[in-house]
């Protein structure tokens, strides 16, 4: 009974993970934008813009045709997506086309090396455009974040092994002859552990592959 419930819970966990929506990337609303000559559509998770601290980026953008002609004011806000949208930069434009050389914002340069999703919203009189692209912040292979992650994996694994053991106060006597004690069935326990690790690996693959997070 317990094994069936555990199998159902494991399957439900995978189904929930698989239901994660996939988010679009690029520009919509009729605007266009380029960074260092590359369109936002081309800067996907597998082909991010590689940047480092102090880099100067060439930004260009156009407002939608529906904005009309004459004096067109626009305001563009840039965010980096983590748990929430963290403001990175703000740019104002005057006219249908704008461009500027911008140093990589300090907020981005201070993040741990890795791939990040950067989003932007441009607004004007009667129009709104949104866009997103991926950047990769360069850094060495050994970082504080990698060390913290590795320690967390090891500690979590050890804690998981300890969590499976029954409480010491449980007295478990079961057997054929009077006075005999029960012994732990190691092969069965190992099989349950292998199934759990397999479900965890599948969960990692599903969350990463189905959602917008996967880069490789």
């Amino acid at each position: 009974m317990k094994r069936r419930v555990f199998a159902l819970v494991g399957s439900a966990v995978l189904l929930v993970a698989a239901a994660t929506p996939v988010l679009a990337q690029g520009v919509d609303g009729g605007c266009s934008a380029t960074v260092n000559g590359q369109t936002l559509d081309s800067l996907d998770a597998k082909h991010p813009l590689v940047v480092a601290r102090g880099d100067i980026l060439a930004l260009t953008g156009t407002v939608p045709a529906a904005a009309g002609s004459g004096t067109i004011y626009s305001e563009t806000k840039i965010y980096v997506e983590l748990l929430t949208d963290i403001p990175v930069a703000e740019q104002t434009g005057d006219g249908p086309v704008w461009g500027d050389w911008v140093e990589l914002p300090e907020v981005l340069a201070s993040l741990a090396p890795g791939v990040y999703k950067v989003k932007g919203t441009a607004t004007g009189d009667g129009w709104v455009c949104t866009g997103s692209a991926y950047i990769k912040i360069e850094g060495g292979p050994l970082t504080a974040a990698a060390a913290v992650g590795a320690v967390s994996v090891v500690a979590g694994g050890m804690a998981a092994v300890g969590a499976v053991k029954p409480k010491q106060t449980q007295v478990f006597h079961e057997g054929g002859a009077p006075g005999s004690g029960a012994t732990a069935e190691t092969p069965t326990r190992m099989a349950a552990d292998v199934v759990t690790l397999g479900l965890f690996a599948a969960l990692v693959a599903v969350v990463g592959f189905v959602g917008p997070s996967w880069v490789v």
Partner: protein
Amino acid sequence: MMVGIAPRKWAPGKPFKGFRAGVMLGLGVALVFHQLSWWVLDINTLVLLPLLSGLLFAGRAWLGTPYR
């Protein structure tokens, strides 16, 4: 004299500790994979994965250790 094989019984573990272990494992994997540039950090990898991992390992801890 009757001889038989004793039935298998599962002694439950500690589900809350299993949940905590699963969350740590999920967060650790999220950080390591991000540093390997295998994925980005967002709500799926920072919240969904650790929570679901916690539920998975809480379930395994609840299942416990088999005895015979």
